[in-house]
């Protein structure tokens, strides 16, 4: 094959994976491009833009490559609607799969819930601990089926802080913090959360109908929606 035929039609090279798979020129171009993206894969629109191949040629070639089991379609968690392809020898990267928290393109809510409950249980026993301490405790006692990294546990703890079940504090190095270096970030259960918690404190606005009313902006003292005619008030006072 002549080199003068342009960059879009590269000369066929012998390839250990494809020795037995003769590829058409367009298929070769696309396959080389997809392989070059390794575990990140590539979106079909980007393929079309980079190769300048017509749409129908790209579609036909991709189908052929899939039949020949050279490429696979993967889900990109960032944009689930897009067709994303990868060479079969690679595993999708974390950016595509969403990392440890995603399974088949969906958030593994059950796994996250189990980890959250486990972390709270461990922290209730330890009283005060760092993310490393909690991670070690979980992995040592085998409370979870799969081993979790400290990074993963830290992400779970961050979500628990947002849910007000635990709080983040800094070690003072003394008292209950004596085993933790001064200034290190650690966690403890809140009064609201934790195994012995009494539940979250309900604020003043949250405990009256007006505080959670979807019609508050339309409510006026003498209007159609008013405290005198309010159905939510009637229900609240009906005991």
């Amino acid at each position, binding site marked *: 094959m002549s080199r003068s035929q342009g960059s879009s039609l590269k000369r066929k090279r012998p390839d250990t994976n494809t020795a037995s798979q003769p590829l058409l020129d367009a298929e070769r171009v696309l396959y080389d491009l997809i392989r070059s993206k390794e575990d990140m894969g590539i979106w079909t629109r980007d393929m079309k833009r980079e190769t300048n191949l017509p749409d129908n040629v790209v579609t036909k070639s991709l189908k052929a490559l899939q039949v020949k089991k050279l490429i696979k379609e993967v889900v990109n968690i960032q944009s689930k609607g897009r067709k994303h392809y990868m060479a079969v020898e690679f595993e999708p990267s974390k950016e595509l799969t969403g990392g440890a928290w995603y399974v088949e393109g969906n958030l593994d809510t059950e796994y996250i819930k189990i980890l959250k409950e486990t972390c709270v249980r461990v922290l209730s026993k330890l009283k005060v601990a760092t993310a490393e301490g909690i991670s070690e405790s979980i992995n040592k006692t085998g409370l979870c089926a799969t081993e979790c990294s400290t990074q993963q546990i830290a992400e779970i703890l961050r979500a628990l802080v947002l*849910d007000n079940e635990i709080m983040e504090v800094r070690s*003072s190095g003394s008292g209950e913090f004596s085993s933790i270096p001064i200034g290190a970030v650690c966690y403890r259960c809140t009064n609201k959360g934790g195994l012995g918690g009494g539940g979250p404190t309900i*604020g003043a606005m*949250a*405990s009256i109908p007006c505080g959670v009313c979807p019609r*508050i902006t339309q409510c006026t003292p003498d209007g159609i929606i008013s*405290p005198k005619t309010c159905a939510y008030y009637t229900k609240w006072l009906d005991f």
Partner: protein
Amino acid sequence: MTPEYGIKLAVHLISTDFGDHAAKVCDCLLRKGTLALDDIVRTAKLSPQQVKTYLKVLIQHNCVQAFAMEHEGGCGEGPVVVTQYMLLFDNILHRMRFPKLLAIVSKELDKECEELFEAFLKHGWLTLQQILDRVPSNQNEGNCTVQDALRGSFTKLVNAHYVERCPAPDPFLVPPDEEKTPARKHDANSAKAVEELEIGEQCDIAKATPSKAKGFPVITDTCGDINGDKSIGNPPGVVIGKKRKQDALKLDTESGAASEKDVPWRANYKELVCHLRHKACIENVRARLDSGAAIVLSAMLEATQSAEKNVKEEISVLLSISTITEAVMQSEAGCSMTLERIRASLVQLGCHPNGVGADRTYNIDLKKIIELAQNDEVESMVLKRYGREAHRIFRLLSKSCCPLETTKISDTTFIEKKEAAKILYKLWKDECLHMEKIVLNESRQSQFMLWKVKKDTFWRHILDEMYHAALNLSIQIIELRRDKHVGALRERDVRLAILLQASLMKLDDALMLFHDF
């Protein structure tokens, strides 16, 4: 500028206590700001006599402050002194919380002081003569004893700073200096608010004095023993002027005592609000941390209360560890606390020691505690209104110092991106969040949404909703009183009244967090 429902609530409170005409005067002063008599007559569409009558009532009840100020005359005339009237919005809202204010006095002092203080709340301005005249004239025997007891209760209230001298009825004030606030010139509402604050401060200084007073104000004391518990280390006295200086009590001559009896006194709301602020901080710490930390905070605030210069003090006064320990151990709840436990509580409270060794001192960041309490209130409302996931997103954005992108929010909160976007949009539509769209032309992903909580805007919105909710509760309470049923239903009415009143007081605690503290 007072939020719309703040105005409606204030007008409602005035209307309930003093009638619709007084409410009209209140409404026009709230909407138009400080006005002269002619302007009020024109705006409220009442006769001059009516306006004068209701202004007098509102002044008597500490809801309006009159003052005289020099203005440029028109058409080449010389300067003119005009009496203007300023509505005291905070004092009107205090009318809603009289039971709370009374409870403070009841807890700190005796029953007689409580009854006398209730008279101040009911009648507004009272002179010592009017207080003494409360003794029925047919009680000839023991009249002097009763009067002495009243005088004693009055002195206790003054010493505890729960009552203060009223400002002069019509003080002459210097116009606020526009040069001092050049930045405010661009914002008419802020400029007006600053001007009214300066006028209020000047009025505070221009306290009423007896027409022939000589030297410091005095109170004739024939009781002998004065309760000086509230002013440890200070001579018992009265509050005068801007600073909480105290003057020594002196026995006076007859003529001085006679004129002193005509000086009006009123409830000192600032002191009472300070008490409520401390109480709110202590309760927040108790709920958020534990009772040990609450006891230490309470002792520290008790020890530094007299040194506080204003209600919204951000940082408490410095105290040494020995002073803190002494204060804690003197309290009933803290008598069994060890030094180590006290130190641990100080760490929990976030108190960092200043200095080294035995000279170490500690103070409390009260502003931080109030902010945490405000966050708790708002987050509770977001949780109830929008659900757990929205609450998680809101807390993430509240804690973040910069705007966050949708994907980052989704990843951190473990919420599917599509669902997170829906929640963010809903919160944005309801003015909880601020959204910024970033468009990048060169990247595959051409559009990013950045989100953040815009605290000042959202907090103002929350405050207005609280005023609205308080107004609705007040209306419900009045409706209940109107629809009284006899017989079997009365017990239910009593339960409803208790629920509504308790809810209003709890809401008022939250309102004070955002407005007064």
